């Protein structure tokens, strides 16, 4: 049996702001994309602001209406990244197998460290104490025998706590949680599950697997495994370095693609998901775009390019990815999978190049932000590109909501920070 930890920094951005401004302890605090703009978005808040009903993702003036004395700080990503890296340094004392999930969450496989440092729970306590004492922020840690339960565990007690989920207690703890607490279960999956009377994780676990497959396709099988603790996805340690610093999405096991038009559709779908997550992350614009292609013999090719004009729109990312594909792939075999990733973020600072058409660029940006808004409100299927609708299976894929056909691929979190 493996021992896996999931460690989640509590109210991360707000906690770092409190480190910088200790005089604000005991005051409701929020971190905002842009504090000057009344329409700036709340990116994070502390516990106190939460108790006033302040929500991540809402507009500043809405939040101020609920909480008059809300103190806001502009997002300071370079500090967040520094703290995040220091925290990783502490994880690194206990294992080298660490997988980041966003800036504030990590999985750690400590199976091979138990002889040196003690049980999973003891390691979790050591990590929790070290982070609090050395850095001054807190974490919630879930300890379990698979990634899914470890993540659920880190959510159960917070802040500054450790929760252990074992094969003996998961039915009493995990199974009571609502289905949507399970990783990758978005709104549309939840609705489908509820429609057949499945409301909790325990309901998923005790429903016939075939029923779930009938309802959700391959995805149903995965959920069934997750809910029963059968998940055996490894902690993707070696890839971590990249995943902190890049946002990517890939789709494989889908079907073989034989021509550029089909590939283009898939690239566009992936670019949309990547661009939407990039906008949500607040990391600014991306300067490097990377494309990877897997052929049907499962050989993978990759190519990346650094562009002069950083971007965060799907249209730009897709256009560059098309070009990369054209240069990279010689069609010796059909294509089985595609991955699109962006990195080298501007961290919120805007730098305009001389040839930037500010108005046109701003329009593209606003268009895609509006699309984000509509999808957030009415679901990811509410508005889709015609090109993607041409392929019914792709149109069904709720890639932005967080799951891909193969959930083992590099899917990054949409969790709030």
């Amino acid at each position, binding site marked *: 049996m493996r021992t896996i930890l999931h460690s989640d920094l509590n109210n991360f951005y707000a906690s*770092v702001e409190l*480190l*910088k401004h*200790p*005089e604000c302890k005991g005051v409701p605090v929020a971190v905002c994309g842009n504090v000057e703009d009344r329409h700036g978005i709340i990116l994070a808040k502390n516990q106190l602001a939460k108790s006033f009903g302040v929500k991540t993702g809402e507009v500043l003036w809405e939040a101020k209406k609920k909480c008059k004395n809300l103190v806001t700080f502009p997002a300071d990503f370079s500090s967040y990244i*520094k703290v995040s890296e*220091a925290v990783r340094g502490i994880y690194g004392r206990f294992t080298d197998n660490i997988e980041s999930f966003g800036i504030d969450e990590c999985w750690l496989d400590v199976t091979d460290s138990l002889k040196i440092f003690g049980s999973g729970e003891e390691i979790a306590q050591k990590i929790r104490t070290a982070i609090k004492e*050395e*850095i*001054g922020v807190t974490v919630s840690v879930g300890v379990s025998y698979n990634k899914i339960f470890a993540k659920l565990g880190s959510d159960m007690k917070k802040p500054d706590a450790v929760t252990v989920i074992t094969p003996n207690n998961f039915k009493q703890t995990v199974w009571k949680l609502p289905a949507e607490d399970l990783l990758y279960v978005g709104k549309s999956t939840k609705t489908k599950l509820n429609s057949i009377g499945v409301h909790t994780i325990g309901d998923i676990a005790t429903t016939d697997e075939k029923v779930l497959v009938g309802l959700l396709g391959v995805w149903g099988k995965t959920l069934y495994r997750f809910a029963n603790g059968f998940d055996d996805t490894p902690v993707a340690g070696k890839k971590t370095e990249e995943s902190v610093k890049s946002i990517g999405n890939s789709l494989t096991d889908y079907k073989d693609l034989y021509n550029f038009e089909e590939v283009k559709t898939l690239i566009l779908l992936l670019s949309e998901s990547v661009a939407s997550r990039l906008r949500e992350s607040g990391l600014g614009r991306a300067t490097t775009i990377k494309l990877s292609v897997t052929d049907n013999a499962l050989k993978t090719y990759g190519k990346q390019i650094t562009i002069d004009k950083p971007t965060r729109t799907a249209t730009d990312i897709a256009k560059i990815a098309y070009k990369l594909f054209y240069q990279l792939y010689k069609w010796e075999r059909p294509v089985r999978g595609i991955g699109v990733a962006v990195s080298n973020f501007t961290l919120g600072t805007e730098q305009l190049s001389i040839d930037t058409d500010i108005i046109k660029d701003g329009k593209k940006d606003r268009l895609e932000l509006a699309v984000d808004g509509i999808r957030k409100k009415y679901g990811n299927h509410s508005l889709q590109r015609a090109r993607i609708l041409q392929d019914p299976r792709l149109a069904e894929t709720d890639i932005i909501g967080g799951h891909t056909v193969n959930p083992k691929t590099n899917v990054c979190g949409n969790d709030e920070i």
Partner: protein
Amino acid sequence: MNYVKIYVRAVCEFSSDGGIKPLNIEWVDGRKFAIDRVKFVERKPCLSGGVLPRRYTVIMGGQQKYLYYEKEKERWFVEKEFL
């Protein structure tokens, strides 16, 4: 209780195997204080606010004091209670 930072001028020694050790600090009014011994160096949050400062626990004039090093700006500070 609130704390303020007081940045101080410091004379330091760089060791050949890495690391900085403060030898003396100069107060705002020009008084100099020798650092008799560095007891330990840790990463610790400070009370006056800051991200990841390095804390030196030092003996100065027979007393134990904290001296902080701020890496980004490469400067030293002490903290003072502020009423």
